[in-house]
């Protein structure tokens, strides 16, 4: 009240603030996400993002495919398509999956706007608020975001260097069932895991399937990196061992380019039919143009050879990162992936990757704090480093800068050692995903 007795009404700058659905409650800009804005500067070596190195893809191959599509099928390419995706591409997707031992039929495939959309649709179909989704510890930040948006309860299950630990899965399920919790599916990235870099061993795959089958838990297998191995190919997909208990998600984002936004789901037929209906409700149809260009590319180009090219690029970069970590950060530990894009670095407990990020930005290096990959506040003593986009020289420079950050932080913490608690209170605000175009 002012002295004149006028009642002043506040303005929270969002007239619809009280109208948002409960599921939108966590959607807010955070300081961490704001710091990623600096990573877009060329002076900053970003080891944070997940952008594939599409410059290794000859653009003339794409232009040729586009020209052919427009010349021969222009009106169709520019028109709405069917909700399941174009049949020819779905046939070709079967050929791609066959490399990893997967057999299926065209009628079990639905093309989506990136596999991210497939992830979203599966979650939409199965999750009621409070339902449990099991996920590896850590897990893909984009999946956690989707699961949260449907108000799922994400429960993490431990991994080691061979991937998801079967006994940990068994125990987690028993514990949750004992609490009367409803488990809808296990979300897993078995190959060259994002963010952990590890691969589920061939020996464990049947056991994981058996555990889920015995407990009537569906498996959602997300495999965007499966063909990007450096040495030995990854073991055959979980879906190759079980056709009814696994929904398989695939993508052309890493084996071709993410700009097309073409992914797919291979699902048991009844689920697949519902996925089509859900997809049509969301986007009417996936992009006809994108699908047809991808299909044409697969028809006329040596796409297997291109994947080999990508493998060579990423292997060189991975090696650069491992070498640099060994030289500059010998006191830390990390995974050494046989494929994919990421290395998971674990730091001493005294270090907090989220709190360290502002210092890193000042030192012109960016990474993704480990907290982004957990739904339960863990991950503070870890970080994900991506080697997919920067050159080997930039990777080396970035890791050297990171070492300066880590050492500076250790020096600062050492100053205060023994004076009291240096741990950070868990925030009730989760860290949303870095933007997709973060390099």
């Amino acid at each position, binding site marked *: 009240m002012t002295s004149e007795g006028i009642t002043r009404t506040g303005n929270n700058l969002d007239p619809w603030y009280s109208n948002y659905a409960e599921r939108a409650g966590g959607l807010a800009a955070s300081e961490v996400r*704001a710091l990623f804005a600096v990573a877009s500067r060329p002076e*900053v070596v970003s080891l944070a993002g997940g952008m594939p190195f599409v410059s290794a893809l000859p653009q003339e191959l794409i232009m040729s495919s586009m020209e052919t599509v427009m010349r021969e099928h222009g009106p169709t390419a520019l028109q709405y398509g069917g909700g399941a995706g174009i049949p020819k591409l779905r046939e070709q997707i079967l050929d791609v999956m066959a490399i990893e031992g997967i057999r299926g039929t065209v009628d079990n495939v639905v093309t989506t706007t990136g596999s991210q959309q497939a992830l979203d649709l599966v979650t939409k179909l199965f999750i009621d608020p409070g339902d449990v989704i099991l996920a590896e510890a850590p897990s893909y930040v984009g999946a956690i975001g989707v699961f949260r948006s449907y108000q799922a309860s994400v429960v993490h299950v431990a991994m080691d260097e061979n991937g998801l630990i079967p006994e940990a899965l068994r125990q987690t399920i028993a514990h949750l069932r004992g609490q009367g919790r409803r488990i809808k599916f296990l979300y897993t990235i078995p190959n060259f895991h994002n963010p952990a870099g590890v691969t589920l061993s061939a020996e464990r795959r049947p056991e994981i399937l058996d555990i889920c089958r015995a407990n009537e838990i569906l498996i959602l297998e997300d495999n965007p990196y499966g063909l990007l191995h450096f040495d030995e190919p990854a073991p055959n997909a979980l879906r190759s061992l079980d056709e009814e208990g696994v929904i398989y998600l695939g993508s052309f984002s890493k084996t071709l380019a993410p700009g097309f936004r073409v992914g797919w789901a291979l699902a048991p037929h009844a689920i697949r039919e519902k996925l089509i209906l859900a997809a049509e409700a969301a986007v009417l149809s996936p992009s006809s143009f994108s699908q047809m260009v991808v299909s044409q590319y697969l028809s006329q180009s040596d796409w297997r050879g291109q994947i080999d090219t990508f493998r060579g690029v990423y292997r060189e970069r991975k090696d650069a990162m491992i070498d640099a970590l060994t030289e500059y950060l010998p006191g830390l530990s990390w995974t050494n992936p046989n494929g994919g894009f990421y290395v998971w670095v674990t730091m001493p407990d005294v270090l907090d990757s989220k709190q*360290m990020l502002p*210092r890193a930005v000042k030192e012109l290096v960016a990474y993704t704090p480990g907290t982004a990959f957990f739904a339960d506040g863990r991950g503070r003593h870890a970080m994900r480093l991506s080697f997919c986009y920067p050159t080997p020289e930039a990777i080396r420079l970035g890791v050297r800068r990171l070492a300066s950050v880590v050492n500076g932080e250790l020096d600062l913490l050492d100053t205060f050692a023994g004076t*009291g608690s240096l741990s950070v209170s868990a925030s009730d605000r989760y860290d949303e995903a870095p933007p997709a175009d973060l390099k």
Partner: protein
Amino acid sequence: MTEKNLIMADSLNIVVLAGGISHERDVSLRSGRRAADALAAAGHSVTLRDPDASLLPFLTESRPDVVFLALHGSSGEDGALIDLLEAAGIPFVGSPSEAARLAWSKPVAASLVRRAGLAVPEQIVLSHEAFRELGAASVLRVVADSFDGDVVIKPGSGGSAQGVSIVSDYGSLPRAMVDAFTYSDVAIIEQRIVGTEIAVAIIEVDGEPTALPAVEIEPVSGVYSFEARYNAGETTFYAPSRLSDENAARASDAAVAVHSLLGLRDLSRVDFIVDGEGVPWFLEVNVLPGLTETSSLPLALDADSRSAAEVYSTLARAAAARKAR
């Protein structure tokens, strides 16, 4: 009307600088876009640029009529870029470099404001080196004994509440110090003042600092954190504030005094806590206040029935005229 006046009536070529490499880059980009839009709406020819190695050659070759700074954080507020603009003879909206340097250092600004007789919370200012040299345990013991109640730990420079902690339990002091030192080599431990948090924006009208209506800040969480500042809905703003006319005037006078004694120019924002007796306690001053959708200066303009486009345009013309003289 003289020829010089005819020239002034035309639109200006304005370069808005936003972004940079600082912790506040994201906020700066948002401020810059809004400033550019407002200046364009006022009829000027506007270029939005992110400072990089090509900036200085661009400015010295293209010679814009004026540079409008929206570079929050060290990029634009520590005086370095301003020094260069002054050296190159490029007009800009904002405080001179010397004044910017005084304002950028929170301890220095606080000392000057206290010496001028305004209320400033008790502070201890410490560098990381001081902790190393004297022993953190000993230092923290003295700190803990020096204050009653909550303290605010903040970096010695920087905005947007980055690195700021409110400590009730002195066992949390070490972590709060580490967080502050992440952003600056100097950290401030300050007595927390309980009261009404306000921001008073100053704009210069015909060269005279004029206080806009104070904006009262009431974060939903109780803490005006980064998230509370930049997410609509997480803070309730009262513009004008709910302070009594007398207390509002007292705060306005204090803000004008701060602006003047530090030698600031064109625009600034002074943050206070007004206690139960109406005393405005100085927190900090900002020479490049935020211009985003959730920033207090645009709210204050609105409360004063002023158009952002007109005000920014007037400031730009005044800056251009400084060069023309």
